[in-house]
């Protein structure tokens, strides 16, 4: 059966086989075409499981084989449902996190013939920069990779499971603890008496529509109130009547709305939080790069688009740098952020699309036949691809 080209193939550079750019995310996947200003589709990274028939996240699989099945189905869906183009003879750029698992990477390579680009690096391309400290606030985790003169400083990477997922579980916990619901009969009950767990979809909806990241000042007052009841907490924002399934109404307390994201800023047992990750990463960088990096912060990822998030991170970092242990090492008093020309959640995709629109794709991508011979994907952590080539050095 011949496949007909969708609108995607019309009127752009090499019309026939325009490169497809995919940014696989643990929650949302962005896909579109090279050289365009935004992705064609941002879709949930979910597939129907072949065995159980349930909708499951693509990257949660018990073994490599299952992961491959998920990916085949998911990529098929992307091409034939969303992008509407023929996958044959088409180059693909996959935007990936440098710190992503190799198993996922290998599974993707088995399905597609492609070019992997590091998400943190290409994010800088959307800004026309080659130096910056890129903080990717994703769903599963937050990762920090500093990039200096287009070279990722890998020794200074930071990653913590602080992202959308952490906010969801914090939200669920807070709601089960405090929220009240009104059922059909008009009786008020505690939420925990009605349900045991809220679904991710509901939590995400509540988070996106009602929650925000409160200011540093208010957060401080809330914290103090926790330990010392004498300190007056700031008046909470108004509560929201949220309709749940059926005719049950959930009352979202104002305090929950502003406190769910505190989980990203509360320092854990190892004194780690999102702001401390940024500073730790700076401390691990060579001393002469720190100032340039601190003045070029780039915050990307879906979680960064929560209301007030960037402002809060910036003020937290500024406050934290003056306290030990950072004040002993870092003599930085100026932090600046960039505003990428895109929505936060597809900045990395956009970088991939810019790169995908250039000749670099042809030069650097991994051809299918070569992959079949070698059976490996070049990777920074694989020494076979990462030792200095002496022959290359001489000929240059």
């Amino acid at each position: 059966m011949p496949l007909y080209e969708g609108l995607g193939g019309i009127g752009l550079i090499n019309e026939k086989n325009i490169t497809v750019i995919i940014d696989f995310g643990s929650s949302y996947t962005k896909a579109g075409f090279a050289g365009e200003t935004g992705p064609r589709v941002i879709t949930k990274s979910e597939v129907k499981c072949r065995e159980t028939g349930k909708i499951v996240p693509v990257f949660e699989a018990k073994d490599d084989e299952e992961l491959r099945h998920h990916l085949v189905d998911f990529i098929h869906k992307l091409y034939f449902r969303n992008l509407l183009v023929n996958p044959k003879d088409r180059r693909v750029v996959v935007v990936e996190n440098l710190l992503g698992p190799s198993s996922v990477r290998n599974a993707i390579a088995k399905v597609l013939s492609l070019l992997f680009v590091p998400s943190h690096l290409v994010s800088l391309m959307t800004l026309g920069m080659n130096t910056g400290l890129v903080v990717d606030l994703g769903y599963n985790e937050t990762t920090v990779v500093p990039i200096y003169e287009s070279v990722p400083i890998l020794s200074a990477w930071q990653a913590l499971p602080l992202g959308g997922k952490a906010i969801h579980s914090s939200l669920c916990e807070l709601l089960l603890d405090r929220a009240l619901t009104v059922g059909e009969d008009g009786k008020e009950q505690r939420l925990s008496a009605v349900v045991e767990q809220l679904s991710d979809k509901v939590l995400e909806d509540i988070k996106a529509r009602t929650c925000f990241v409160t200011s540093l000042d208010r957060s401080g007052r809330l914290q103090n109130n926790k330990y010392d009841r004498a300190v007056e907490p700031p008046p909470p924002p108004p509560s929201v009547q949220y309709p749940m399934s059926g005719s049950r109404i959930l009352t979202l307390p104002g305090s929950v709305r502003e406190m769910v994201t505190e989980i990203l800023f509360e320092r854990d047992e190892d004194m780690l939080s999102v702001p401390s990750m940024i500073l730790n990463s700076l401390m691990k960088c060579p001393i002469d790069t720190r100032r340039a990096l601190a003045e070029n912060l780039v915050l990307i990822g879906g979680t960064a688009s929560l209301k007030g998030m960037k402002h809060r991170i910036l003020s937290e970092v500024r406050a934290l740098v003056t306290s030990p242990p950072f004040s002993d090492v870092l003599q930085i008093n100026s932090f600046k952020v960039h505003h990428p020309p895109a929505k936060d959640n597809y900045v990395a995709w956009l970088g991939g699309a810019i790169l995908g629109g250039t000749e670099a794709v042809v030069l650097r991508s991994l051809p299918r036949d070569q992959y079949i011979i070698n059976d490996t994907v070049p990777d920074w952590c694989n020494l076979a691809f990462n030792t200095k080539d002496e022959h290359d050095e001489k000929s240059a």
Partner: protein
Amino acid sequence: MFMWCSKTYHRYLFLPSLPEAEMWELCISRATGGWSEQDNEHYKYLQSLLEHYRSVAQQEKLDRERKRFSHRKSAYLSLTDKYSLPSLLGRKSLTPLSPYAPKGDSSQSLDMTASEATAEVEGLPDEIFTEEVVLSSVTDMEQRMASPEWQPEKTSDLYPLHKHILVKRSLRCRHCEHNLSKPEYNPSSIKFKIQLGAFMVRVVDIPPEKTDLTPSADVALPQGQVILAARDDTAEYDDQDSISSYKDDPLVVAWRRANKVGINLLVTPKANVSRAKVGFVLRYDYTNTVATASESRTVTLNIPVMVDVGTVSE
């Protein structure tokens, strides 16, 4: 022969939340071929970035070519390399001759401005701590992700979406090789209506017991024949009535319009009937304009017609 035909359109999804005036504006612009698209505010900047990185990649490709070239000829070039100045001059003068030379100076094509970092970011608006949240005015994630480049947060900012049809877009009939389905971007265009409109025909079997074919009235049919011109597809879209050039007996022909003609019949109901039904045979010539001329193109067809004229009044 009846055929099942299906026609593909783009379906347009309208989101119900647009203010009415705006919605009308969109509808009107759609009638003339689509609504105005939203523009990405960063379009120009992104284009300059793309241009820049293309030239960088081009440069890299050139360097590779050159490297391969110089590697092979290194024995000859090493002499000139010793005397750096002439070799520099020589190279410079040669570049325009090289087929790989970039067009224009590479440093000049980089008219891209790097983004400026700012010390301040927009904080929370003060009213977030005091104002009630109206859930129905805030979009959910699905609505936001449906338009990735804008991701509206308020339902008032929602914009109509294009929805692609997901089936094969062209289809030809196996026998006559005519297009049954063909992509066309605007289903409201006249071209679409005339050339690409397809009709769905359903064949229904009426069980004989349900059909009452005994006429209960006599009908006086006009003598001779009524002439109707060949079917003209465009006639339906002409507003003005074409002035008839037929010499019709006004007693027989009631009216003519587009491809239709109305005729007067005299009906006499039989005694003691409540409903008047008349039966007659309609004979006409059908000319097949589609098939190849191997067979006779014109066929005379007889169609039995039953008309329920209505109840008989006293």
